[in-house]
């Protein structure tokens, strides 16, 4: 995990260096005098060698200093800190919905293989993985906001202001985020469950005369979850990427909106900060997934 994190930091530093323009000039604006530019360049360490600059930058990152926004002149870490919880909530609810619906559907479909229900689930799952998230979001708006008028088409309400309205606002974005995950988890958990149900120990459980429901949900589920959890972990990153788009559909003030505004204003420190934080979150998620294996399968140990 540490080498990957280090790699992520190096990759983002390369992005910092590849970003067009002079950071000192961008920070000071066009009216800055050459002396002033020189002074700021020196203060930022831009007149040193690349390895030195990397060292300074890395030390900053480790202390939570991700640089200063060219536009708002605020610390990038502060900007991200106010937006991250919004996106994180979206991602967590989206993941929870996707995992719940996807795994349940996949398990049922495997237990009733080759029935009409199975065909229905596999078809819906295929639709789920083929659906562009932003289009699904728009379809949801068409149905629930414009035709039925049940939910607000866009916007965000803080939890502290009105919990009910907050929940209403969060529902459609997290549904659109979760649809792809639900589809891919249904497909994977079905395959995995089909394989598990063919194992000897499952036959033993059935031979003991246990109800099929107990065999599937108690005996087989835990073993069949291992490959599914791998997919879940891998998809969490994609889901965070998808949040960037979904936030645009629903005018949601998360890190995705922060990122896109920063891109349109060429506010590179913010762009790099967001990318770094999201990548770090993905790496952390993979660690959590690795730890989940040891709980699902006690035979797996990490020294």
């Amino acid at each position, binding site marked *: 995990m540490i*080498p*990957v994190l280090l*790699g*992520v930091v*190096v*990759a983002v530093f390369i*992005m910092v260096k*590849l*970003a*067009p323009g002079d950071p000192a000039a961008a920070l000071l604006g066009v009216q800055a005098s050459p002396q002033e530019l020189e002074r700021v360049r020196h203060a930022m360490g831009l007149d040193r060698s690349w390895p030195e600059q990397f060292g300074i930058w890395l030390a900053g990152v480790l202390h939570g200093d991700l640089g200063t926004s060219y536009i708002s002149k605020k610390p990038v870490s502060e900007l991200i800190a106010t937006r991250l919880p919004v996106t994180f909530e979206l991602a967590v609810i989206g993941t929870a919905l996707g995992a719940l619906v996807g795994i349940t559907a996949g398990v049922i479909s495997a237990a009733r293989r080759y029935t009409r229900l199975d065909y229905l689930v596999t078809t819906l799952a*295929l*639709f789920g*993985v*083929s*659906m*562009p*998230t*932003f*289009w699904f979001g*728009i*379809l949801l*708006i*068409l149905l629930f906001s*414009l035709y039925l008028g049940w939910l607000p088409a866009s916007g965000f309400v803080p939890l502290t202001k009105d919990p009910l309205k907050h929940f209403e606002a969060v529902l459609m974005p997290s549904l659109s985020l979760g649809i792809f995950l639900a589809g891919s988890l249904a497909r994977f958990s079905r*395959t995995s469950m089909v394989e598990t149900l*063919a194992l000897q120990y499952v036959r033993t459980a059935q031979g003991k005369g246990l109800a099929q429901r107990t065999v599937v949900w108690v005996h087989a589920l835990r073993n069949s979850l291992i490959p599914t959890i791998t997919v879940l972990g*891998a998809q969490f*990153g*994609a*889901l*965070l*990427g*998808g949040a*960037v*788009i979904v936030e*645009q*559909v629903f005018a949601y003030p998360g890190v995705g909106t922060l*990122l*896109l505004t920063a*891109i349109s204003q060429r506010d*590179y420190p913010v*762009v790099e900060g967001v*990318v770094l934080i*999201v*990548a*770090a979150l*993905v*790496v952390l998620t993979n660690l959590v997934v690795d730890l989940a294996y040891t709980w699902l399968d006690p035979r797996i140990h990490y020294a």
Partner: protein
Amino acid sequence: MRSLTVAKPLAVPSAPAVAPEARNAPRWRMWRRLRRHRLALVGLAFLGLLILCALTADVISPYKPLDQAMNVRLKPPSAAHWLGTDDFGRDILTRILYGSRVSLQIGFVAVGIAGTLGIVLGMLAGYFGGWLDSVVMRCMDVLLAFPAVLLAVTIMALLGPSTTNVMIAIGIAYIPLFARVVRGTVLTIRPNEYVQAARAAGASELRMLTYHIAPGTIGPIIVQVSLALAYAILAEAALSFLGLGTQPPTPTWGSMLSFGREFIREAPWFTFFPGLAIFVTVLSLNLVGDGLSDALDPRLS
């Protein structure tokens, strides 16, 4: 299911007398199995049709993609405009047909970039192992830490929006998709006796890789190509949707969908049909991908 796979070779004696070994060559076997998947064929047929439409868009389109007609702004689907018109009175069907060019072109080139780099890296890593393997795979891990769409968005931000840059951005983002699969396949091929025999016979490293290792990786690569095409087309649409892709007035499915959102109340078809085009294309690619992976590994049906 397993017993079926084992039983198959026994049926060979009843095969037709005409060149049985040619008919049983892996690619024929794969094609025969693929044919059994009707849905995969439906997907393949749709993709063929789409490619044809993209190639002949200027002939078959009822209108010109940039022709504006303010007297038919935001008109619903009709005999004159099958899928309706947009806010400039442009024909949506025409623009979707032209948009397929962008999607397919970017999809194919991006997958070409990702595939070429990913396959070469994966083969080298899997075949030579050791430090090369560690370095390549750690790089892939780092690349995978960035969500593909986010990585593509960031690369676009640094390079600036243009069609070529979209291809590069998506191409880079999906390198690990190929590198990991190819490496894994090479690792299963390498211990085979025929590979050892070729090495004992004194084959050079280049010959080993191209003649003895590479052919075995083709099946998994074909499956990855269909998957990667689906992802790439979704990613292209997402970038266009965010305004970071191919720039207007060139029609792209993603940008049409995005502009249509403004008129979602009075003209829902404006945003609906471009999205449907993306959905059906990706669905077809997924159907073909499913069919191909079944054909390669019938156990996992």
